């Protein structure tokens, strides 16, 4: 047989070489053409045109203030709509006039009167009246609307009853339009911080005419939200919305304060992937990023004139414990777990975002509420509590699982804490289960977990937003924990109008919480993001609600 060691078909085959060269040539040509054409970066052009380019995290689920739930959606809504009271650009606790020029309350803080300005207008020219607000609150509280955050309006008298369907006449709910420019709110309980509450996105007004043009008041998925149909009363109006690409807003020509609106428009970019967003920022595509990948925080910190910003944020990262399941049903065991977590190590080496190790549950606010100082790392105490719980050694503890949803950050923290519990308590049977997002939500909702990761961000500047969730039966409790003392203390605090007394009562309630420990606080959040030097007037805010009309872009 003829040997084919040297193949008879070996002739110079230029086809292969040629294609490779052709391809490389094309690639280089395109890239050179590209760099030659681009004279300025996107950011430089945007600064020139006075458009803000902001990274906004995930895609907005909706642009209707009555159905959104997440923070990113809230940002866009605050650009589009304006409530009675607005956020101050440098101080969270300050309340700036929005649609309401001024407001006052009775001495008990149960009746508030808002005086609306005469020149507030919707983006189609219609005047903004008190009746718009009444209609809006009717909509969000309407039982058929299914507004997830309707509970924010339970401050109003009978708000909860109406939402649950116990009352069917909305006129019994404590909000009335005395005339076009006067809105009166009657509250269930005294609330000296009520102007803070109405800054929240759920209290924003919507345009009745537009909504009713596309469907019933309570239809949540009609086309009124799309650009071209969308009508809003804020500094900007919606001009473009491409899913996964951008949401663009431009100046509202009818806005009452339009002379003071600095930017000509804002482009919100819903970049999911934090690494992509960081690359986009470095590449000159964004003025502001939503977050920073953990592994790059250090290198940014070391830069001169770094764009990195780390700011305190009103939120807490914690682990929920299922108090109805062994071994977490034992309070001494939970204490052992809590004392065995070395929070310093976690914030210094794992999360690295300048977070503060939690010493209580509610994050402290400057000049305001400070939580009890009862949470810390103490391995000796931890082992004592383990013995008190009835376990001579960690090996005796039955297997239990930490549930997390898919995220590198949650995974790293869980792995670290699992290892800490192993090191300091000798627990050998801890599993970590990484569940898909909705499966995770369902597990937590159904209380089908042992320990699960959790986080909570404050809705308004008051400790009540953190503590009310642990009341018996609250839908955000999800631990099965119920304590009549705690419930009583919170109810008593709600009835008090003097802020100092309220804080003292809430402090007592939190002491109960930290004593019984249905949750294990880990750290208090920070906002970590990148900011271009072109962005001016951007100040650190605890709730991170920046009023965009004051944000200017100037190139230095």
């Amino acid at each position: 047989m003829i040997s084919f060691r040297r193949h008879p078909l070996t002739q110079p085959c230029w086809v292969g070489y040629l294609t490779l060269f052709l391809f490389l040539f094309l690639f280089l040509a395109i890239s050179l053409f590209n760099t030659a054409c681009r004279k300025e970066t996107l950011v430089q052009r945007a600064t020139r045109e006075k458009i803000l380019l902001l990274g906004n995290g995930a895609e907005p689920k909706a642009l209707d203030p009555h159905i959104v739930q997440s923070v990113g959606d809230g940002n866009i809504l605050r650009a589009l709509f304006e409530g009675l009271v607005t956020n101050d650009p440098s101080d969270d606790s300050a309340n700036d006039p929005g649609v309401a020029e001024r407001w006052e309350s009775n001495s008990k803080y149960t009746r508030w009167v808002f005086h609306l300005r005469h020149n507030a207008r919707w983006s189609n020219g219609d005047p903004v009246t008190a009746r718009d607000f009444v209609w809006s609150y009717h909509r969000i509280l309407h039982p058929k609307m299914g507004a997830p955050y309707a509970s924010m309006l339970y401050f109003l008298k009978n708000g909860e009853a109406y939402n649950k369907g116990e009352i069917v006449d909305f006129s019994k709910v404590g909000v009335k339009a005395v005339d076009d420019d006067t809105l009166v709110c009657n509250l269930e309980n005294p609330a000296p911080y009520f102007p803070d509450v109405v800054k929240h996105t759920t209290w924003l007004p919507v345009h009745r005419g537009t909504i009713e043009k596309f469907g019933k008041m309570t239809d949540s998925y009609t086309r009124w939200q799309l650009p071209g149909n969308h009508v809003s009363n804020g500094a900007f109006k919606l001009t473009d919305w491409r899913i996964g690409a951008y949401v663009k807003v431009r100046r509202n020509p009818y806005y009452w304060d339009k002379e003071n609106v600095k930017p000509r428009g804002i482009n919100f970019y819903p970049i999911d992937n934090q690494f992509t967003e960081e690359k986009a920022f470095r590449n000159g595509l964004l003025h502001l990023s939503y977050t920073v990948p953990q592994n790059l925080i250090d290198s940014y910190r070391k830069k001169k004139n770094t764009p990195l910003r780390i700011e305190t944020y009103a939120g807490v990262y914690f682990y929920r414990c299922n108090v109805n399941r062994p071994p977490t049903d034992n309070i001494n065991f939970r204490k052992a777990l809590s004392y065995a977590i070395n929070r310093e190590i976690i914030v210094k080496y794992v999360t690295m975002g300048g977070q503060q190790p939690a010493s209580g549950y509610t994050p402290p606010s400057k000049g305001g509420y400070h939580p009890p100082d009862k949470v810390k790392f103490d391995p000796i105490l931890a082992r004592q509590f383990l013995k008190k719980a009835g376990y001579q050694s960690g090996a005796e503890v039955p297997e239990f699982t930490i549930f997390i949803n898919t995220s590198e950050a949650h995974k790293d923290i869980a792995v670290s804490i699992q290892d800490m519990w192993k090191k300091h308590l000798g627990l050998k049977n801890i599993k970590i289960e990484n569940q898909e997002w909705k499966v995770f939500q369902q597990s937590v909702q159904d209380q089908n977990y042992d320990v699960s990761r959790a986080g909570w961000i404050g809705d308004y500047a008051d400790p009540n937003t953190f503590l009310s969730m642990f009341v018996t039966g609250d839908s955000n409790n999800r631990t099965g924990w119920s304590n009549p003392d705690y419930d009583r203390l919170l109810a008593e605090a709600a009835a008090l109008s003097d802020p100092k007394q309220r804080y003292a009562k809430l402090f007592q309630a939190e002491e109960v919480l930290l004593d019984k420990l249905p949750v294990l606080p880990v750290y208090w959040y920070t906002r970590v993001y990148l900011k271009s030097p072109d962005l001016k007037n951007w100040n650190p805010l605890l709730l991170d609600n920046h009023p965009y009309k004051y944000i200017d872009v100037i190139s230095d």
Partner: protein
Amino acid sequence: MSCRCGLIPEEGKMGNATVHIDEKTIEKGSSLGRDAWFRLRKNRFAMFSLWFFIGIVALCFILPFFPGIADPNNTHPDLKSLGPFTSADSMEGNRIFYLLGSDHLGRDIFARMLYGGRISLMVGFLATSVSLGIGVIYGALSGFVGGRIDSFLMRIVDILYALPFMIIVIILTTMFGNKLWLLFVCIGAVEWLTMARIVRGLVLSLKNQDFIEAVRSLGLSQWRIIYRHLIPNTLGPVIVYTTLTVPAVMRLEAILSFLGLGVQPPDASWGSLIKEGADRMASDPSLLIFPALIFGLTLFSLNFLGDGLRDALDPQSSRD
């Protein structure tokens, strides 16, 4: 007289067989497998790849039993991101030596790679076997039978291919929990579809060739024809495709952990290690380089082994 009807017989061997008819001196018949093995041994590159691959498997499954290999799940967050060949003191006071460095939680990269290898190799092999077994038989059957049954079987493949994989995996993991064997089943259940299509295509071409007519005229049963004559002749591209399937399987496993459905923390697989490394490539390149290197080398060796096998099984290829 021995008859290896599936192959074009080699001149030399056939010659011998016709001479020695006497029972006692009959030469030991040589099967397809045996011939292939002889030819493979002559291919030095393929043999090297085989030994290399066996070496990696041994490393991952046996080496961890030796003392001195760190626990891959031991975190030392204060000793994070150290380079290769460094020693450091842990908080508990012992001295730790990192062969390839430490990751972002202070775990030993080398140990993680070994334990991760166990999982990746298991997933790779079991899932590939599942997909190979089902795919080849299904495809060969469908191609051979032809006509309406073939169309029907291929439509089923199309339907299964179009179903949203992620949702099915979610449902299965919720029903059975996040077990490793579920991973093999899910991945194998996806990969067999493409294998079936390719085999069917090949069988359809082969079906009408002369030698099949010849064998059919000998009166062999359908199954015999498929098993002894069609399948061996599809082995070439099937082997090539199998060597492409193993990395696909391992990569699918990585994407599943990307989405939270694969290997559970704190365990790792090469896929999840590579994913962690890719995320951190700007700050910790060694997290990516080492796992990617071992992943790549293992797959390289599989690939060249596959090439060698393909050459060995096809008597008409160049080596002679």
